[in-house]
């Protein structure tokens, strides 16, 4: 069965680009527009990996990370931060919130698949 | 309906015969004369029925019809070219044209066939007198014994004396 990825980004273009890329590589993709939406969807679907933007309205990626890690079935699931946010400050925050790793925007589809392949390939 | 053209050449602004090799024409009759128009300009052929008149339009503009939801003006070429009998019967045919990205129909006495003409079969038009302005004639075509008057339909329909387009009013 195809692995399912929850892609969270408030930017429709990035989200669709990510979804398109992932689907092309054979993943199932669920899209969410912000942290809150992602949390709802994370509860509703069985997800193998979460890919989240950080800076989003309603609920940002860090809060999402934190809350997801509190859910029993998300404790061990890879969660990657997808962010333009500068600096290691953000990495530290992401790590503290429970991120598995980070991927810096802008990225190209090849790199996205490469990272994801390393985690759930 | 055949819509192929072996060699497509650009329309030259003058009415002279162009240097392309083979062109396909749809031939039709108006009274006793035979005319040809480039097949690429022809969208379809229909019968003549239920036309809605347009107020105060020139007499050769018969009105508009509904072509699958699109309102299409219909021009009677027989009236336009001043040919005497313009009666409408079950043989009356409307050729739907697609010129200058507009759809319009012309009423003719009957459609004959589609013929191919190569450059040698086409001659520049001599002065034809008052019936039709040579400006709208691409040339004369000869097939066996037949003589075809090849009309530059795009130019004709776009001309100001047809009054089909708004900008031709001024």
């Amino acid at each position, binding site marked *: 069965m195809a692995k399912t990825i929850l892609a969270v980004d408030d930017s429709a273009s990035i989200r669709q*680009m990510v979804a398109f890329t992932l689907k092309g590589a054979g993943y199932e993709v669920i899209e969410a527009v912000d942290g809150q939406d992602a949390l709802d969807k994370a509860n509703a679907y069985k997800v193998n990996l979460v890919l989240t933007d950080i800076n989003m309205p309603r609920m940002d990626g860090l809060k999402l990370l934190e809350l997801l890690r509190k859910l029993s079935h998300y404790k061990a699931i890879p969660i990657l931060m997808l962010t333009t946010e500068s600096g290691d400050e953000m990495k530290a925050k992401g790590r503290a919130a429970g991120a598995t790793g980070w991927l810096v925007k802008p990225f190209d589809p090849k790199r996205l698949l490469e990272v994801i392949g390393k985690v759930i390939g | 309906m055949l819509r192929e053209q072996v060699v497509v050449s650009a329309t030259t602004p003058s009415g002279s015969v162009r240097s392309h090799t083979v062109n396909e024409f749809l031939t039709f009759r108006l009274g006793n004369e035979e005319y040809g128009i480039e097949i690429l300009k022809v969208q379809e052929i229909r019968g003549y029925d239920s036309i809605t008149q347009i107020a105060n339009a020139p007499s050769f503009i018969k009105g508009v019809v509904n072509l699958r939801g699109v309102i299409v003006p219909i021009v009677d070429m027989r009236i336009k070219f001043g040919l005497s009998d313009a009666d409408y019967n079950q043989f009356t045919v409307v050729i739907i044209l697609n010129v200058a990205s507009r759809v319009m129909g012309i009423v003719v006495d009957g459609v004959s066939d589609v013929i191919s003409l190569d450059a040698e079969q086409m001659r520049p038009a001599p002065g034809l007198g008052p019936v039709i302005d040579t400006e709208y004639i691409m040339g004369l075509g000869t097939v066996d014994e037949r003589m075809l008057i090849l009309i530059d339909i795009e130019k004709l329909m776009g001309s100001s004396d047809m009054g089909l387009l708004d900008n031709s009013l001024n």
Partner: protein
Amino acid sequence: MSTDLEQFYEIFFEESSELLADMETCLLRLDVNSPDLEDLNAIFRAAHSIKGGAGTFGFTDMTETTHMLETLLDKLRKGELEVRSEMVDAFLKAGDVIKEQLAGHRGEGQADPAAAAAICEELKRLSDEVLVPPAIEIPIINTKTEIIPVENEVAVDEIRPVSMDDSSKLTYCIQFSNDGMSNATIENLFANLKQLGIVENNTPKNEKELCKLKLTTSNSEEDIWETLAFVVDPANLKIEVDSSDSAEVNVTETRISDATHANVESLVEEDVCATTPMPPAPGYGFFPGAPAAPKDIDDSEFNLNSPQQQSVGSNKNELQATSNKPSSKANTTTPANEASSIRVSVEKVDQMINLVGELVITQAMLAQTASQFDPVVFEKLHSGMNQLERNTRDLQESVMSIRMMPISFVFSRYPRVVRDLASKLNKRVELKTVGENTELDKSLIEKIADPLTHLVRNSLDHGIETPERRIAAGKVAQGTITLRAFHQGGSIVIEVSDDGAGLNRGKILAKARERGLPVHDGMTDQEVWLLIFEAGFSTAEAVTDVSGRGVGMDVVKRNIQSMGGRIDIESVFGVGTRISIRLPLTLAILDGLSVAVGDQMFIVPLNYITESLQPSAADIKTVSGHGRVVQVRGEYLPVIALHEVFNLRPNVTAVHEGILVILEAEGYKAALFVDDLVGQHQVVIKSLESNYRRVQGVSGATIMGDGKVALILDTAALVLSSKQEFV
């Protein structure tokens, strides 16, 4: 770049346009004295999102501008800088530049790189300024030629002013393959890197394929990565913290080391970069020990970053606000329900509307045929037809509703218009909007924007007085312009009202006389006000470049009329003016009455009809030289014989044998004489002009149940022509 990305361009363009509009809205409501953090966050997010997309899709000019925007905004939302109105202006200007850049990428015009450079410079100045007040001016040295790695000397770039905050700076070693890169590309890349900090070229003389640089910057590795990512193949790029150098690098020091290294390339190569092989594609990483992190990750990668992380972290301890959760209130402009909506091109919707229109016609045709069958015998057919009719109508209604958009799409542009114009005219104006959610057809939305803009500008220019005059007149200094929209019957009414000086009856009449217009003192106010819509009419005492050339109000009126709408003015001298526009909700469908003349059928728009009647012969009078009139309830109305207007052969020629349809348009009444009434229909309006041209007296066409074309009468024009004949 992968061409795959092109398919997302359109989404990105639309998204960015929306984000820019949101940004502008937030900027305009931002109170400089007590800025709402949520608004700042929202503005920041908008810039941030555009930057992210622009970077991903390779629109580097936009990335640069948004980056500068984001930098300043970040400082504002973190409270490092205070918001000043100068900044808001710069943000608005930057928004305009980005809009232009966006348009450029869309293939609609060309963005001006100078404007972009200017605004970047300004944003940069604004964000730097407060760190080092007053701004340090450092003479700019042209280093263009030094950039290309042809000489073995180490080029030090002196362009950048040195930030006081050196402690957060780090030196990175950057190494990449320049194989296949043109000199111009490299030059450009250097210029970009210089934006980040101090660049030092360490490329050895005899090295043809490898560029080695040192960059001292307070920006993060990601920023450097971002700058390089679209120029350099990620597989051939190495960025690492220069372990041989302390964080406190400054220009002097670099110069010294510069001198030391000048002739010792081999040293430079080995020493400065202390190269440990990096994974081929940085730009991502995993946290060792984090849940689900790959087992084989290189710990050194994270460790390598940790000193930097600490130094950065300790310096920015106070900057906690970064990503503190915005409260739910923030998102009035960022629709949270985005996921449940889809974007569809207007063409598709229009195609659907057309198809549904066809369906309605087919259904009507079937109904006509079915009505000939005995309802008892064919009971099921008839009930089926009834259901088909209902379904078709529902379908038509819901399809039409797709095109409906809230008027806020238009209203939202006016805060900016008013702000800019008010400051230009030295007036104080507040713009209020009421009923932004009132919906109307998208095509009308597009068409109403220009006339409405003109009315708003006009109100501001001619209506609202200067603060001094207002105070002298006993009014508050700040004027108010109110935009209001509401539904009334089958129409939408849009009002532009102001509490300004009001129209001056005497002045308008005098001006009209001067222009040779037929006026007299007995005219009603309403009639006088309408004079301002006459061509070439302007009452402004001084012609301003804003709206006062008298060009426009007549165009406004014509535009509104061409949309099937009408315009009214109410005004009280000294108190204010209200201009209301009444428009049909949609251009595509019309309620009409079908009338027959001879064998032709015409549609009369229902909203112009007051009644229809069969007159008695005694009510018809002839007025010599002016045709006929009919007496209807004590009023004499001109009779318009449709067969005469359209040169048709009617079935009845005596007025009292036919039907009179009483029409009212623009305050004038007339009686339309036709053979018979046929019925009332909702008709889909089709353009005559798409394949033909405009026809006098006809506003469009439709297709009737039997498949025939019926022309829709231009009622207003008919009524007005009868009036001209008659007065």
